[in-house]
């Protein structure tokens, strides 16, 4: 499954990269293609392009604030997750999101 997402926390220096890393790593392990854009204190890192949005099966938003430029994900299934849970349980988050999307696609 192709997954894109955005991580963003308030201070933008700890949770933001930790969540992005945890999700990407979990994706690798579980065999999904994951790319997470970090909206942190230094601006945007690893920006998700429109092509990547178009190719993605699902968008994960892991943020405890409003993210920049959310409009580009319009029309895609968007899943919101607490950023803290992504840091601690990246794998479970990916598993749960994938399961939810698969169930949704079947229905």
């Amino acid at each position, binding site marked *: 499954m192709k997954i894109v997402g955005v991580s963003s*926390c*308030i*201070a*933008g*220096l*700890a*949770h933001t990269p*930790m969540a992005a890393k945890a999700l990407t790593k979990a994706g690798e392990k579980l065999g999904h293609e994951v790319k997470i854009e970090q909206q942190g*204190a230094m601006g945007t890192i690893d920006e998700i392009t429109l092509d990547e949005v178009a190719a993605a099966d699902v968008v994960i938003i892991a*943020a*405890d*604030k*409003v993210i920049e430029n959310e409009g580009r994900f319009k029309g895609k*299934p*968007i*899943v*919101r*997750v*607490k950023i*803290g*849970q992504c*840091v*601690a*349980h990246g*794998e*479970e*988050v990916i*598993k*749960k*999101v994938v399961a*939810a999307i698969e169930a949704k696609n079947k229905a």
Partner: protein
Amino acid sequence: MKKTLQEAKDHLMSGISYVLPVIIAGSLVVAVAKVIGILFGHTDLDVFAKTSGFFHYIYLFQNVGWTAIGLLNMILGAYIAYSIAGKPALAAGFVGGVIATDTNAGFLGAVVAGFFAGWLTNWVKKNIKITGAASGALPLIILPLITVGATGILMSIVLGGPLGWINTSLLNWIKGMTASGTNSIVLAAILGAMIGFDLGGPVNKAAWMAGNALMISGVYMPAIMVNVAICIPPLGYGIATLLKKNNYSDEMREAGKGALIMGVIGITEGAIPFSLANPLKLIPLNCVACSVGSALTIALGAYDKMPPVGGMYGFFSVGNGWAYLVGGIVGAFIIAIGANLLVNFNETKSATAEDANENLDEIEISFD
């Protein structure tokens, strides 16, 4: 209703994320100027306002910091509005934030102004339509006129008085609380425990926001209590890896070095990888350590002399800076010793694998 509240909280947090660099930059600049003054025996730089030469330059430099701190309400109002309605809301947010400062409505006023400006901008965008040749007038003339005008009227004429009164009363109440020894120790213990509870999660951020919001309004004691507590968990686990090396895998020892640095500069999140090893035992330990450390700092007589700077090196911005250091280090050692007694960090890998399936149920995801 719950969704609206969650959204409102996110907008507030977005506004605060823009304010953060300004607070930090401003308080650091003031602190640097003050420290240079103190090194030369001048505790008050204001006496150099009308002189010339070196100390006048230092005085001017200090004013740069105060200028940055003075921007806070304006930026907060503007970026809450920006978070709600994007660029068109900025003008009204800026103006509302400045009026909040002018009417003494402070942080509270800036928040109200930001939300009002944002929501009003969305309303105008949705409900006022101009067609034909004059349609270009809407974004540049009509919308700013309505949003800036209405936000201005609300903040200065309608709410200026009452919000100013609420804000001033609130500040006086908290000032009174931090002036009395016992109450301020209790406050420090509570704020400290909140910081330690979830290391960067919502409870931690609530305490942290209270400290910063009050700092914007010139009440510095809560920020000192929060700042020292923030350093304790990462510093504690960093020290723990040094005290009992064989309790940690190579990877964890390496993380310990990073945690030490994060403790010194004041990033609580550095403690997360360690606390995850056994949250049931370690979260209470974090709370106790932060609570004791923060309360001890205040009990030993730390007081506010300038806008406090975060991190352990922030002690120079605190009156009786040694109390800040002692509080921080005692708190860190409570974690360092406690964690080594309670948890064997070598065994954590297998434990987390077993928990994985239970965790699956706790993770909340929601679709739009």
